[in-house]
């Protein structure tokens, strides 16, 4: 199964990098929002340190949903999704592969946006690089797995661009809230400890629960 997930992952990554539709759109969107933030409040004030995490993760949630939205739509032309489903690839491998691909795309957006945010708003986010990577990985996985599952649910809907955010955002709030809190802590150069570790637990627990649920239920969603 892992081998098949890997194949789906490579296929998705290759398709995306040939067209670069979603990733370009998502990056452009993220950068525009980054600039918009500077009008919403005084970008030079100290206050911004307290909302860094919130801003960044709202940004990643928005651009992330733009990315995951494409992952099943991509398969709609020429009935590729049906062909994938009748092939030997199990639905769970399809989900895992697509989630990994989406994780990579979200990570790429982050690789661009984090330094740009640091530069524009004069906040060094890289004082705890290991923590930053860990948080980004865990929270982006949460966006990717839930986003991909819900993208599979909404792929046939007329209003899927609208419906996907409506059902994804309420559901990923726990992961986003945890990521926001933790990012706020590392943005001032501290390491999460003591009471703050509950956010790490929440993030890990969220990922474990929803990954299990998603892999268990994806057959029901996709297989007719």
């Amino acid at each position, binding site marked *: 199964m892992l081998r098949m997930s890997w194949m789906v992952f490579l296929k998705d990554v290759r398709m995306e990098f040939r067209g670069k539709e979603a990733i370009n759109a998502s990056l452009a969107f993220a950068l525009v929002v980054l600039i918009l933030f500077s009008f919403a409040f005084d970008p030079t004030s100290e206050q911004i340190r307290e909302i860094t995490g919130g801003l960044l993760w709202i940004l990643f949630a928005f651009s992330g949903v733009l990315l995951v939205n494409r992952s099943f739509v991509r398969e709609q032309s020429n009935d590729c999704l049906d062909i994938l489903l009748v092939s030997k690839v199990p639905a769970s491998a399809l989900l895992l592969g697509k989630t990994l691909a989406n994780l990579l795309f979200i990570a790429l957006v982050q690789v661009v946006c984090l330094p740009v945010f640091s530069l524009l708003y004069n906040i060094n986010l890289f004082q705890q690089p290991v923590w930053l990577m860990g948080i980004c990985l865990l929270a982006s996985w949460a966006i990717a797995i839930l986003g991909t599952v819900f993208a599979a649910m909404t792929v046939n*809907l007329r209003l899927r661009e609208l419906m996907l955010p409506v059902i994804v955002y309420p559901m990923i709030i726990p992961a986003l809230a945890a990521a926001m809190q933790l990012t706020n802590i590392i943005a001032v150069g501290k390491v999460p400890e003591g009471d703050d570790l509950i956010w790490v637990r929440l993030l890990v627990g969220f990922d474990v629960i929803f990954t299990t649920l998603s892999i268990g239920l994806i057959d029901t969603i996709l297989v007719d």
Partner: protein
Amino acid sequence: MNDKVLLALGVASALYLVRNLYTMFMVLPDEAAQGAIYRIMFFHIPSWFTCFACFLASGVASAFAIWKKNFKGDSFAVAATEVGLAFTFIGLATGMIWAKIIWGIWWTWDARLTWAFITALTYAGYLMMRNMIDDPSERMRVTGVLSIFSFTSVVITYKAIDWWRTQHPGAILSFRTGGGNTDPAMESMIYQNWYALMLLTVVLVMLRFRQEETRREIEGMRRLAFTR
């Protein structure tokens, strides 16, 4: 269930509620710290219990529907979710009225309140999603999975007061605190009102379930007529 049973249950719940109202206002005294407003808790807590029960029923019915490919389960799930969502809003509204009087504000973003709100949003999303899918078996599968996913937010709402330090009061019922926290007469009143609301809920869910079944039948006939 036939009309007579439903009517009898409805009348029973109405009588039970009237009797509860009498006890609440005529027999039980004002609470020492909060005064008269504490009585809203006799509706606030049971509403949440009712909505949790509805969402649990909806999740179980959805799982059953998917497992057995049973459309009745799907109809039951949507009936339970709709009634549950109504009680969610009652719970939110009664909580807000209480908060305005005790805290002086309508709303605060603590974990309990926030997750209660998220729960309302996710189940509202479930109902919206149902309207968008035309194929009945796809609707059953997709929204069934969504209902199971959504139940996680119910669990978080329930446990939020244990996991975070919330402005929302902690547990008061003796099965969670071990007793000694709430006056037994008042605590029993909370349960009594919950039973009454559950009776009402059964009536509402069954009515809605029948409507949903009829709707599905009409849909099926329409499809048959168009394909001929």
